[in-house]
């Protein structure tokens, strides 16, 4: 297992390097005139050229990339071209917002999806149909619609929750909870629906297996069979889906952060990408890639722990 983890981390590091190079080259398409974007449409061409030169954009892309890489490995990710903020600090300021959302959604999904999935898989019949219908609706409902309805009803109309903004967990726990609850709920609908389906089918599949019949024949209480044996075996595929959902959340977070005016990584990605702020975008790309690699690794380890058959030597 240790060798597996080391191998995965080494492969991950290589992947980060390759992706950083590809991203930098793609971001440096010549049409993206950063100087012009910074100075506005009315600036003279000389001024724009001088600005681009000051940012080092007149150098070959490879030189720019190597320069960026040399600084990045030393932990210096530079400053934003568009707001002059330190990149590391800028991301550190916004990361807690997005992590709050992702952790919240993952927790809600893990609890609700497993409950619903197991309930449907074990009980079948009407309960199963209910969960199935819920899943289809939850999955099909556009995220923005769910978010807008939640904001308009619970924040703007009923005033139970703030409509915009974020309070840090260190500042006030209840403030934090009230600002992340609606965004987490709106992101959870699709996530719970997807994972619950997966849990349900895994549970049904495991229940059909011979050893379950044997356990039943031995007279073990059904609750013990489900909790000790079925759930453990059915968890692996569901965990894989949960891991994918976690990674995919970043996409959903963009919209939710925009509607709730949350200063997180998602809305940051949109704002800075449209402007072509390479120092910030590169840092965000690196963060995302490392995050995806880490989540996959954790999911693999968890699956291996749950299911010895899946363990890799």
């Amino acid at each position, binding site marked *: 297992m240790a060798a597996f983890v080391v191998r995965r981390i080494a492969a991950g590091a290589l992947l980060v390097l390759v992706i950083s190079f590809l991203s930098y080259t793609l971001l440096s*398409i010549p049409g993206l005139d950063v100087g012009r974007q910074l100075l506005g449409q*009315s*600036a003279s061409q000389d001024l724009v050229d001088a600005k681009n030169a000051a940012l080092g954009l007149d150098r070959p892309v490879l030189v720019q990339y190597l320069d960026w890489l040399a600084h990045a490995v030393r932990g210096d990710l530079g400053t934003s071209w568009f707001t002059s903020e330190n990149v590391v600090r800028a991301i550190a300021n916004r990361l807690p917002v997005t992590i709050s959302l992702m952790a919240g959604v993952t927790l809600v999904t893990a609890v609700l999806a497993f409950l619903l999935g197991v309930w449907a898989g074990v009980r079948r019949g009407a309960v199963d149909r209910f969960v199935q219908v819920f899943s289809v609706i939850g999955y099909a409902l556009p995220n923005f619609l769910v978010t807008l309805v939640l904001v308009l009803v619970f924040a703007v109309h009923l005033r139970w929750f703030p409509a915009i903004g974020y309070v840090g967990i260190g500042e006030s726990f209840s403030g934090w909870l009230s600002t992340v609850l609606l965004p987490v709920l709106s992101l959870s609908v699709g996530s719970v629906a997807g994972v619950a389906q997966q849990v349900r089918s895994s549970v049904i599949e495991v229940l059909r297996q011979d050893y379950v019949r044997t356990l039943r024949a031995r007279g073990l209480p059904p609750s013990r069979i489900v909790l000790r044996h079925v759930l453990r075996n059915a968890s692996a595929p569901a965990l894989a889906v949960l891991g994918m959902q976690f990674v995919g959340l970043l996409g959903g977070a963009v919209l939710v952060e925009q509607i709730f005016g949350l200063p997180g990584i998602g809305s940051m990605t949109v704002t800075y990408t449209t402007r072509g702020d390479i120092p910030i975008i590169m840092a965000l790309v690196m963060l995302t890639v490392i995050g995806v690699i880490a989540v996959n690794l954790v999911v693999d380890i968890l699956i291996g722990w749950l299911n010895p058959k899946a363990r890799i030597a």
Partner: protein
Amino acid sequence: MKRSATAALLVTASLIAGCSGPGGGGTAGGASTTLNIATMTLPQSLDPKDANGSALPFFQAVYDTLIKREPDGTYSPMLATEWKYDDGLTELSLTLRGDVKFDDGTPFDAEAVKANLERFRKGGGAQAKTLNDVKSIEVADPTHVTLVLSKPNPAMLYYLSDAAGLMANPKDFAQDDTLKTRPGGTGPYELDQGRTVIGTKWVFTRTARYWGARLPYDTIAISYFDNETAIVNGIKTGQLDAALIQDADQQISVESDPKVKTVKQEFDFQGVFLFDRAGAVTPELRDPRVRQALNYAIDRRTMLAKIRQGRGAVTSQVFGPATAAYKPELDTYYGFDQAKARALLKEAGHESGFTLKLPRIPAIVSDALAASLQSDLGAVGVKLVWDDLDPGSAVQRIFRDRAYSAMVMNMGQSSADWVAVGEVVLPGAFNMFGYTDDTVKKLLPRIQGSAAQDAKADLQALNEHLVADGWFMPFYRMTYLHVSDGSVTIKPQDGMAVPAIYNYAPAQ
């Protein structure tokens, strides 16, 4: 057991809801001490040399300008108490306040003015060009400084009340990046570093020893949003106190809330800039009759009704109502007359029409606008082809390659005539082919060389000529909405889309 768990959940939920409530600005009944403003502008930095357009409020909190621009566009003393031109209008003498200090105790004086203006002019910022006509700055004594101009510039007072006039502490000039995130001026507020998250929320707290009049708020917080939906929700719930709403649908949404207070302002106009009046890219545009035909071909009233939901006023001129050049009758100079358009095209020898290719940036040209222009022009035989571009490559193709003969633009209408002239008539970014004609050549020096009040007739003559000769194809001025949650009174700032920070006061 189950019931108690549910009860506990409910209690927790109500607790959360109760303590959070909509936080923020307006404390009911009492005097509000924090003003929460929402913005969709990101300042590039808080260094005055980077100051630009809608980012000005960020700078006004920390820096004073030499001259103050009042909401109605008139000038009043700020760091300079008096100003005077010589007879040739090339020397502008300023008398400065003698009792002002920067935050660190350094006195503000004429040398500081000289250092700031010289740095601004050479700083490479977007507005550096506004001081192009300044030849030298001469310091007579600590409270007297003279700007020597290479030629008269009727907009100089405007610039000194805008970005160019922001005065920073010259002690911070040595380290080039200090001011970007740690501004230091003589202004009414200081940036609260601890509560500020650059790029998200900037918090300014009152400077106790400010030399000037006390502004009504102890704290001003400016929060950045990338969409108007969040801003409108924030205003409706009182989490935000004030904002500018541009989108017509969002305006309607926010107006439906009875508590929300609104003030209308016409600032930007939208229209086609026909850059290529010499016909370098599209030869047909060389003939004024063709440019006039384009103007007659479009149905401005329908466009305004459909695209801006009637929020604005049709116009055929590029000068705004606050300028001396403005003539109300020019708003309707070009009626919707496609027969006349066809006749003009026929007269110009283009009876069978021609093709006009325009760049399309979706943020400016909506689907509705694209379709409307295409069908109106198509009806008189002009085939409009849209070139879909992403904003990045668009600026390159338009401004560097000069690949298009015209483009649809939204542009703020300055109240200062010479600022407007500089943007749209003089050779530059928006007259990228450097086009001029005899009438313009005759009028410009006269306008430039006379005091503002004497130039009115020439300015109006210039405006009439630009309209009649079809330099532009304006559609309408757009109504913007200043909104507040009811706790703030907002005065629109003449010549700016966003109000100056001096223009907010607690509602009575």
